[in-house]
């Protein structure tokens, strides 16, 4: 068992749960956490052309949405060590500060950005985004039993990039807004376009 790998995931999860608590989510469901990290990974490739810093997570299509074994292992570790409390298949809550924000500025910012989008649209909306996510959709349609391939030419990105061009046409000046604002506006656009209802 690779402790180093587990350690990194522990830090991610502690940071996510801690930042989620700050915006008023006292508890978070483990399957929401799985979806959240999936979103972190898939959308990261859209944000940056460099290597995906969430590469270590491997997701599969399941009835409950994306699922990674690593996330479950980490939650169990954090529960056993009383950093989190709750249940590994239910709601969890943070009860320590260990590991929180022990990561690069970039990683923290990205987690915050995605949380921002989440808080704005609510979890159900995000879940329907995942279900409508072309990459996820293809995996479901093909009955894939291997992990979902989040690569630079993945289908979500192709679609998101198509939207990006259309979206930028709707903005008068992209240079005047911050990166967070950009992403937030962008998602306004995305949701208005691809998620019906």
């Amino acid at each position: 068992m690779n402790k180093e790998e587990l350690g990194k995931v522990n830090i991610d999860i502690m940071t996510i749960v801690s930042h989620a608590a700050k915006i008023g989510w006292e508890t978070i469901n483990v399957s929401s956490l799985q979806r959240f990290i999936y979103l972190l990974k898939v959308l990261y490739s859209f944000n940056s052309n460099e290597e995906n810093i969430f590469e270590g997570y491997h997701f599969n299509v399941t009835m409950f949405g994306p699922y990674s074994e690593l996330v479950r292992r980490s939650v169990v570790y954090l529960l056993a060590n009383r950093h989190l409390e709750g249940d590994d298949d239910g709601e969890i809550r943070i009860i320590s500060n260990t590991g929180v924000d022990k990561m690069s500025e970039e990683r923290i910012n990205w987690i915050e950005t995605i949380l921002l989008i989440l808080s704005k649209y609510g979890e159900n909306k995000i879940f329907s985004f995942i279900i409508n996510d072309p990459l996820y959709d293809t995996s479901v349609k093909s009955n894939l039993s291997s992990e979902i391939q989040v690569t630079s030419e993945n289908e979500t990105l192709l679609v998101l990039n198509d939207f990006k061009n259309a979206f930028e046409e709707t903005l008068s000046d992209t240079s005047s807004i911050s990166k967070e604002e950009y992403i937030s506006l962008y998602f306004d656009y995305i949701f208005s376009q691809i998620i019906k209802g």
Partner: protein
Amino acid sequence: MSRQIYLPELLSINIKNYTLYPNGLDYTFDFVKGVNLILGGNGMGKTTFVNIIRFGLIGLYKKQRDYTRTYKDKAIIKRQLYPWDFFSARKDERIIIKGEAMVILSFKFNNTRFEVRRSLESGDLLSVFVNGDALTGKILSEDKYEKLGKETQSEYLLYSYELAVLQFSNLSFDDLIFFVNEILFFGESHKTVLWNDGLEGRYDVQNELFNKYFNEPNLDIERQEAQRQARYYDSLSRHKSEDMRVITNLLNKLSKDKESIGVNKDNRNEDDIIKLDNQLLEMKSLLEKIHAYRNVISQDISLLQGEINSTSLKAAEVDKEKNQVEKALNTKLWEQLNPQYDVYMKNIQLNHLCPMCNQPDEELVRKIEQETTRCFACSNEIHLTQDKELTFKYKEVLSIQKGLYQSIANKQRKIKALETEIEELDHEFKNIDLKRRAIQQQIRELEYKNATTGGTGKLQALYDEYKKYSKEKEEYQKESVKYQTLEQSLTKQIENEILKNVSRFSAIFASYAESFLGVSCSLAYEKYDNTMRRFYPVIDGKLRRHEEALSESQRFFIDHSFRMSILTFFYQTPSFYIVETPDSSLDISYERNAANVFLRFLKNPNSIIITSNLNNSSFVNHLIENHEMLFSMVGLFDIAKKSAIQGTSNQLRSIYTNIKERIRL
């Protein structure tokens, strides 16, 4: 959009004057929508009977028209045929009769009735009636017909028949040959189509079927054309490599003897460039190989990772069940347990860490696996109960849980090993790539030197030739890449269309395969080894890429399921499925399930035609015990040669008589 096609619905067969069946010289059999059993002992002509059905539909055609795999141009090969005397060779020459041996097969496409008469002597098509009207055209053997040009073919009956098939079934005659030979007929050779990827000279049915019938067929023609062009240019570029190699060899030979022909210093430079160029080529090909191998390993890892995720999810379910059983076992004792006990146990199982000091501890993992009912810390018994049923249930859940976690750990180990292999490959790749860059640099320097000094040596003509080939080679490669890109984009289009149908198709497959295996089954549409995506069966959560992973009978019935799913998917009107001796490899525990697969296919009005020598009579019994099912039998015992009948055991004959009685009832 998948195409709307009509497959043939068999109505009746009449065999005349065929002395293989001397007691049935004018034998008629009416097909039922249900089970049509062709029952007989060895040598009675079971296989010949089903071959006559096939012959009635498509004549002696063994394989439809197909493109050759040569790169030179799109040469089309002729259809392949069985020999003309395929049936006459089986006649019993001792019996003299008047009149030609022939078969008259009646069938329908949608609502149009066809009656086809073919000679069992010459193999010729004698007449075709469509809704009672005779088609016109001259009679000719298929062998000769295939040698004719398109214009001259049109005056023959074979041509009129092909046109009529296209008109009423929406299938070209080649499509019909394909469907009958590859899908509707599971012959004695028992070749499966699901796993067959066209290697070893076999026919890639999946490729043909899904590219052509789930899509506009033109798209696949374009794709094949692009593929051919890519191969063509690639091979031209290889030819140039070969030419370059010849010059290199020549130069090497000459350089040994260079003093005598007076090669000057300047030319040595060119010599070096060519040598380096050759090294460069070798390295490039080595790098490509490493890259390809790395991809294969990555795919294996991805598959294992996927299996870990799904096993982990199952394990989470089992964990919940275990908790419930534990609570039921002894609530009092449960309360005495540390509230964190359960999560500590999971931490050991999942992370292999001591829950107290968080150090890796494999010994502890083994301990909790073996002493499942004892405390992981002090080894005292913790779940005591008098309730035998609950104890049994508890042990069962624990054993399932143990299996799941072991399977995860094993897969994780495999992934680690593969990852190490990838690291080594990457290291090797880097080293070779470094060398490659150095050589490239050297070549550039030498070329620069040449350009500034100029070369006018005696071998200049050879060097110029070499350069010319090298340039041509590059151009051919560019062309090849261009067509490869086109092929990829067309492939993507085809795959996207198929994707729309995967879940429906997989659900149909599941309904068949699950009734045989009794575990969850589905089809995954995946891509391996840079080929096109294909369907692979997923059985009980595990993807079966190779048929060898299954037992013989599992393999056959998964393949039957796959073929029947195809027929169900395209179902418009009744059709048929012929299986030779489906019971030959069946293990007793699967007989009923096997019968259920066929009965499920018959939920739509269809005909199943099965040959059997009653080696395994309970399979047949399972089929006929369903009284709602229509059932009929070709009594080879009544029509076959006496010698064959006499050689048959009494036991077999009595079973035959029994079945005959049951059909009458």
